[in-house]
């Protein structure tokens, strides 16, 4: 049976998904992107093929997406991660009409039609404050990992607003306020709420429609998801699959369809 690959070459990680003609996912793999996109694309593709006991020659088509999508030279086609993400979200949850992808470097919101095609989209403006990087920086300065920060946020009964928009300034503000005795849990909840609010801003102009699907690295953050639910209502998350794989799934499907 023919196999198709989708590779998402992102700024932080490179993801690969293999599917068969029927659209069943055969294998997935994720590697850190490092500084050489070509190497990471080759490495992830090799790894996912190894898992399926196959080689490059077994692939009927490859579609790449993400910032490094033009670099590898391996692809039959390169597509934007927005299109791929929409497609992947629709595959995982066909009732999806709004997709929010929270990455380390950017956040995207997409409106889909009932075939999974992106009809409108919006990305964050030049600013880290609406991306995963915002939380990563602050987690590092608080000497916490993201999972623990998310836990504290979920558990907190109190939400202390962090209004400062600038990621760098927010970091200073957080440290200063904790030094002044404000509870870290409340502050962390405030941070997640601030990020959720900026992500919500991206979506409003798209006339949000249910079902709302959240993916990307940010979808693993329970604290952020909870705050997003406060803004958006009920949301859907990828089940049984790494939340970062959605664009790669979409890319594989496009490879199959082309």
């Amino acid at each position, binding site marked *: 049976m023919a196999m198709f690959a989708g590779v998402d070459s992102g700024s932080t990680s490179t993801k690969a998904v293999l599917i068969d003609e029927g659209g069943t996912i055969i294998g997935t793999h994720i590697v850190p992107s490092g500084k050489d996109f070509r190497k990471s694309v080759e490495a992830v593709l090799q790894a996912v093929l190894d898992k399926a006991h196959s080689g490059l020659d077994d692939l009927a088509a490859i579609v790449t997406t993400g910032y490094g999508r033009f670099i590898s030279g391996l692809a039959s086609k390169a597509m934007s991660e927005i299109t791929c993400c929409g497609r992947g979200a629709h595959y995982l949850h066909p009732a999806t009409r709004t997709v929010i992808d929270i990455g380390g470097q950017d956040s995207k919101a997409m409106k889909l039609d009932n075939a999974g095609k992106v009809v409108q989209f919006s990305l964050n*403006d030049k*600013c880290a404050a609406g991306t995963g990087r915002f939380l990563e920086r602050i987690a590092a300065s608080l000497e916490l990992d993201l999972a623990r920060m998310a836990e504290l946020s979920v558990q907190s009964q109190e939400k202390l*607003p962090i*209004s*400062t*928009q*600038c990621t760098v*300034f*927010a970091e*200073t*503000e957080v*440290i*200063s*306020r904790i030094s002044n005795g404000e509870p870290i849990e409340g502050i962390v909840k405030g941070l997640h709420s601030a990020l959720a*609010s*900026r992500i*919500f*801003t*991206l*979506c*409003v*102009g798209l006339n949000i429609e249910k079902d709302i699907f959240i993916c990307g690295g940010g979808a693993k953050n329970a604290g952020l998801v909870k705050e997003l639910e406060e803004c958006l209502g009920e949301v859907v998350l990828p089940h049984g699959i790494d939340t970062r794989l959605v664009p790669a799934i979409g890319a594989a499907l496009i490879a199959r369809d082309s």
Partner: protein
Amino acid sequence: MPTVKAKRLESAIKLSAAIRKIYEDRWRNKPLAWSVNSSNPLNDISRILGIYVAYPENYACVCTAQHLSGKYCTIAEAHNYKPELCSYIRNNFGYLLAKDGEHPLGGIPDPDVLLSVSNGCLNFIKWFDALRLYFDKPFVLLNTPHRLFDHDMPDYYLDYVIKELGICIDKLEKISGNKLTDQKMRETAFYSREQGKYWRELLELNKSVPAPMNLSDLANLLFVPTSLSGTKFGLDLLKEAAAEVRQRVQNKVGAIPEERHRLVMFNIPPWYRLDFVNYFAERGCVFPFSDYLRYVWCTQDIDSSDPMEHFARKALSFGHNDGHGATIAETLYSCMGKRLAQDIKDFKIDGAVIAINKSCKIMSTGGLDLAHLIRKKYGLPVLVVDIDQADERTYSDAEMKQRYDAFFDTIGGA
């Protein structure tokens, strides 16, 4: 947190109560215009014609002071009003788009007409154009051209504005169904002129040591020239304020307990954190003058015997006049001449705070050159900070205090 608070002027307290009444009472009337807080003669004229005038710009300050700017700006940005737009505009559209929920002072009722003047920034026009498209209401704009350099303004500038004013008046008379009377015009022009005199007197009184008013007092009183221009009520308030301040000068009552340093502030203060002056006051620093209050409003005494000419000149003179001819809504460059040198001397200034305000290019362009000038030519310490006037999300207490504290060290361990 600051523990020192400047003594508020009684007249400023009275004004605050009056503002509340204006919002809750006067602006509930029809027909209602929305206008800019500039030297806009259309404001004075509309009142004569029975059109009430409300100010979304002032309302943005109110919302900001009540810490709603984060909410409103976020909503506006979600509707494509990008973060680079003036925060007054984002506050305003955020308020309009917020729909549900309570709004400070009950909000402002929708307008029947939009008024603007081009003597300030381009946003005065673009904002109100956007509002008239939003509300689908008439838009009356008084165009006053910007003379880009300091040289004598040719007569045809004034002729042009007088004629444009006439065109605007025709439109307002049709909208209101009323006609302007010469008597009412003269009276309004008279009050406008007199208000200017008292405003300038207040500014001059602050040359005294100790300074009888701090930045926040004058900023509060600014409501009169911006929103009560041409009214007897506004004039009476300024008269009271002037009398109160004269008394303070006589009794050597200062706005802050222990005045050790006198600073000048450039740019619009952050309306959500006007109490930053208290942090400075704790360290013996008072702000006897600011460019926003001294070089922008009522800068000239304009004869009111010919009301049309008075209003046209007033619109054209919005901004600093350094004696080279009436100039319009100036950048900082225009005050970098003799006038600033004299004021630094007369006000006994020993330091400057220059805000670079993302929302206001008109007040920020030139800030960097100004900082260099003050440091080099006058040898004074300067603090340059990024402060947005009405978007609280841009302000971080911790970061700003770090900068303020470093500045205090440079002006001699205040």
